[in-house]
């Protein structure tokens, strides 16, 4: 089982702990990953707004690079996953568009996107290709007693036509993983809502309010930590949590884990190996108690 790892920008920048946990978890699970060091930013929806054809061509280039290696792509960012699948589905549904993208790509890079590569988030790979039961077999640290609130992020769920998440209005990928590693999934109304990160620059108050609503929802439902497959959700809820607390005038103190961090914890990683000391919100008492068992 081998994938071309598309890191996205955050895992190389403000979320390097995501990269560390991905490498740790993939190695212990026996999933081979080869980092795509030549892949560009997916555009995150922003380059798509600036120049739609260029954005699709950038993603087609990434797809072509993986096809040349004969590997499917593993993403570790919910936003990258949604944006890249959108580019792919647009080309699948509109052959004329694919032709235009490929003509430009070939002209500028000599490459061509065939349409064969699969693009999957780590969380889809774990459930659909690897098997949660195989994760459960490798768990060395049962996370029993840890209440984990899943937070999906928009891009892996919506619009449905660009999402590969099965039953995207009632997803259960994260809940099943949480249960497979021995922790308890927490249900709450905001788990499929927006974290607000995309409007942090144009409208910070709304962005922080959305993040706050999600974290308060998780807190009220009794969660010890949040887990998310999207590092942008992580950034808004973790790095801006002190500002959210100030806005809402209440303490939250909610650690926000990246998806692979939860797996890595269950596979025995210590907090240093996962660089959890780089989170703005450090592991709380409950998480420390579980890890130090």
């Amino acid at each position, binding site marked *: 089982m081998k994938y071309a790892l598309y890191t996205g920008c955050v895992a190389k920048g403000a979320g390097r702990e995501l990269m560390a946990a991905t490498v740790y978890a993939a190695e212990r699970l026996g999933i081979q990953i080869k980092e795509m*060091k030549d892949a560009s930013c997916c555009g995150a929806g922003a380059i798509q707004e*600036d120049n739609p054809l260029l954005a699709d061509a950038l993603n087609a280039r990434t797809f072509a690079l993986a096809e040349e290696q004969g590997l499917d792509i593993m993403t570790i960012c919910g936003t990258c996953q949604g944006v890249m699948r959108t580019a792919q589905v647009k080309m699948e549904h509109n052959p004329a568009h694919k032709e235009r993208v490929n003509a*430009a790509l070939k002209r500028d890079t000599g490459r061509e996107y065939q349409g064969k590569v699969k693009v999957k988030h780590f969380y889809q790979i774990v459930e659909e290709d690897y098997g949660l039961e195989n994760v459960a077999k490798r768990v060395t640290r049962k996370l029993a007693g840890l209440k984990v609130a899943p937070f999906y992020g928009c891009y892996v769920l919506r*619009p449905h036509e660009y999402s590969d998440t099965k039953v995207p209005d009632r997803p259960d990928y994260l809940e099943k993983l949480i249960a497979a590693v021995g922790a308890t999934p927490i249900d709450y109304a905001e788990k499929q809502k927006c974290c607000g990160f995309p409007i942090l*620059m144009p409208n910070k108050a709304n962005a922080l309010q959305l993040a706050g609503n999600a974290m308060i929802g998780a807190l009220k439902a009794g969660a010890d930590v949040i887990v998310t497959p999207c590092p942008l959700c992580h950034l808004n809820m973790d790095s801006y949590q002190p500002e959210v607390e100030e806005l809402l005038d209440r303490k939250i103190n909610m650690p926000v884990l990246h998806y692979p961090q939860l797996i890595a914890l269950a596979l025995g990683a210590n907090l240093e190996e996962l660089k959890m000391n780089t*989170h703005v919100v450090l592991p709380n008492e409950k998480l420390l108690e579980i890890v130090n068992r």
Partner: protein
Amino acid sequence: MAKTKFLVSRYNAARDTKPYLQEFKLEIPQGATLLDCINLIKWTQDGTLTYRMSCRSAICGSCSMKVNGHARLACKTQAAEAVIDGAITIEPMGNSPLIRDLVVDLEPFFDSIDRVKPFLVPDDSKQWKRETLQSHDDYRKIEDASTCIMCASCWSDCNVLGVDPRFLGPAALAKAQRFVYDSRDNETRDRIEFLSRTTGMWDCTHCAECATRCPTDAKPLFRIKELRTAAMTYKITDNNGARHVLAFRESVGGFLPGVGGGGLLNENYVPIRSVGFFNLDGILSLIPVGIRMIIRGKNPPILPHIIDKIGEVRAMFRRFNDYRKEYRK
């Protein structure tokens, strides 16, 4: 056939302090829509159940309601397919004041549409002697937005409206796209400038609820993205949202097309570029999070990351304007 549980939200201001779910049981007739079932409940079980409906053909937009938590047209929903664990939960639309049972006050929704000048403004300096024709290609640019039936499903589930009722909202922005892209309209630039203000196009957070719930091809999220493309093309970029997009273009592709881009986003550059280099308050507002991240070692590397084979990406960005010209929706 077993009866299905219909959990229907009820509220009568004269009697109730808050809405509650009332359980009805009904055998779903073969092929019945959800609206058919609600009608049956009203006609045979409780005549006081209140909701809006009219055409039964997904064209009038009256019967939008939350079905299992998400806005849908009751007349366009097969009841049998909406059953989850033997039940269907039906509630009024969100982001709107409740009037009674499943009926909400749609005034705020229609006010939002009025705010975007939802009519064509032709060039008055010309002497129009006959109707203004459009090419097929020009019509295609506004065709999707024209299919909106004003059902307010997008408004109901919009995440931003949930925290900020001043937001123009998805339907109004989709309606605005229909005029910004109309070849016969003479106020394109003014419209984009108005829509670029706070509460406008850049306040959308891409949650994509609107595009998911929309029962037509209007799909507001995609229209909002087209509005932003228009703003970038018209170079109306004096705001944080548009500068955020420029930050992507510049750090990924280069400051001049294809000059100096690293292929990945430079996360140190983005926030400063977005608030504006000379916006002292904006820059100061970034300091707390910056310090927090530096203390933890979470700050992005100072030297921007440059991908392997960057020459290919820079070559693509050098033809930035060609890509724009070659784009066909």
